């Protein structure tokens, strides 16, 4: 059972996953539902940081196949790319 406070945090992140591009809406929300709660605190923090980045950068990394220039994001982006949305 996820505590209420944690649920609200996820709902807050769910709204942050609302982006200007459909591809990111679908991918980030699916990642949130499927993988976020089982991430390490370090990767959870990286996810929060990723959500602060501009859409074209997130898109290039997560959908466009470009590798993050920031090493910190590589592991997270690789996880996002494996999210099942098909």
């Amino acid at each position, binding site marked *: 059972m996820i505590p209420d406070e944690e649920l609200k945090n996820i709902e807050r992140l769910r709204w942050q996953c609302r982006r200007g591009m459909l591809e990111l809406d679908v991918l980030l929300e699916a990642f949130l539902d499927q993988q976020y709660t089982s991430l390490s605190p370090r990767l959870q923090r990286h996810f929060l940081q990723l959500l602060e980045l501009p859409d*074209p950068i997130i898109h290039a990394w997560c959908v466009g196949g470009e590798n993050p220039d920031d090493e910190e994001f590589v592991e997270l982006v690789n996880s996002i790319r494996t999210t099942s949305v098909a």
Partner: protein
Amino acid sequence: MALEKQRFDTLILGAGGAGLNAALQLANANLKVAVVSKVFPTRSHTVAAQGGVNAALANVLPDNWHWHMFDTVKGSDYLGDQDAIEYMCREAIPTVYELEHNGVPFSRLANGKIYQRAFGGQSQNFGGDQAARTCAAADRTGHAILHTLYQQNIRAKTHFFDEYFAADLIRDQEGIILGALVLDIATGEPLLIEAKTTLLATGGCGQVFRTTSNAHINTGDGKAMILRAGLPLMDMEFFQFHPTGIAGKGMLITEGVRGEGGYLINKDGERFMEKYAPNAKDLASRDVVARSIVTEVRGGRGCGPEADHVMLKVNHLDEEVIAKRLPGIRESSKIFAGVDPVKDPIPVFPTAHYVMGGIPTDRFGRVMPTSDDDGDHLPGLYAAGECACASVHGANRLGGNSLLDILVFGRLAGKNIIDYVRDNPSHRPLDEASVSSAMDRFNKWDAKGDGITVSELRKEFRKTMEDHAGVFRVEDMMQEGVEKVRAIRDKLADVRLTDHSKTFNTNRTEALELENMIDVGLSIAVSALHRKESRGAHSRPDYPKRDDAEWMKHTLYWREGDKLEYKGVRSQPLTVESFPPKERVY
């Protein structure tokens, strides 16, 4: 707890290109401006616009605004208002230069001038050689513009209400808009923003269809607010569909895939475009390809367990060609369709892309409340961008004219608002009845108990819109669609939230969005049912011809009684001769 209130000279709902360009004009003129955005402003859907902005700068090939005007009138299938189109094409030039001066990093030529690329539908000399009219910032034009305008607004001290959801307009007994009731998504608390002028810039509504390329935020909120305020929407039957979206998901698969030799097949492996367009085949115009796909699916030749899509075959192409000439398609197909196009075909279906219709305005962004050809605007209320209809796109929009529309009319609305506030410096008295009514609508979602969930009804609604008011439009199925959507509207009363908490209650926000989508969906379905001709993006196999004698007019839809009225197209430009209707051939 008493309702919190704040006052501004201008309230802008929406923070895409239109809203931010208007806000910048106003903040630079030292007006007190509030911008309300349900997501952080640079996450507005403008960010997804990659193509560019049309303006006849003549930096690459000869060009002038009059040729741009001709192309836009022709592209509109003669339903665009020629005074507004002339104005937009002339104002395109100073608008682009102003963006340049504000810091938008446009791609440049070796001589330092803004680079311009060629796009379909652009001509020199009134239908002659290809023109090159589109200004772009690499492939991130929308992002570059949005980012620049946001930074400039911060500098100019525009007040942003980020992650606030606009619920309803507030109006007095004379119908004058006094501001809006908005909701702080983080706390769940309502806030009343009073304003001398209000500009709606809430963008498009592609989410009304099951398959759309639009972001989840595009739920037609401003359009629905207008309907609930007793005002009309115009030409909502004109919706542009891109033929190849990923089936059931909507993401665009670019035309370039077919340009490189990809082709469509049905469940029997038949290359069906050979039947519908023997010469152009898979490279026929967007509307022809989209309609052919839907015809195959409706004829029982669709693919997949639901037989609800067709396949785009590219696996006969060389892997290197796909990697080199179609970057991103392979990754996108793998992620969203679960197929590697190098090995297997991509499941596709037409995807709702852009709505030409919207809140009727004149060329200054002022909302026009009636069907009277000589009618006046509603004082103090403005709309711009995809939520509005100026009408410059008429029945079909040209590539590169959508960013142009939002930027030009956002800017012009901003300039007009400055004059209005100077002449009308006082706030009008608040109308408490209107506030109560908006609060009641907002509070009704507190009802508890068993009922339908938001996601269930949303799914049913979007599928109904796709099946009955999408690409394929014939009388009986559209009539059935209108009745079904009305029944869905009635079911809204039975929807119950699964979350009744206040903070970050996305369930409630999505319920408010669903209510908006259903109202907007009906405006599309009803308007489309009654337009008995084929023009631009509105295609009726039962009325296959354009009918200028009967139908060269705008549709106006009111929510009350699903009423329709019509008003004439403004065919007289401002300073040049009118372009008379001709058959549209490319």
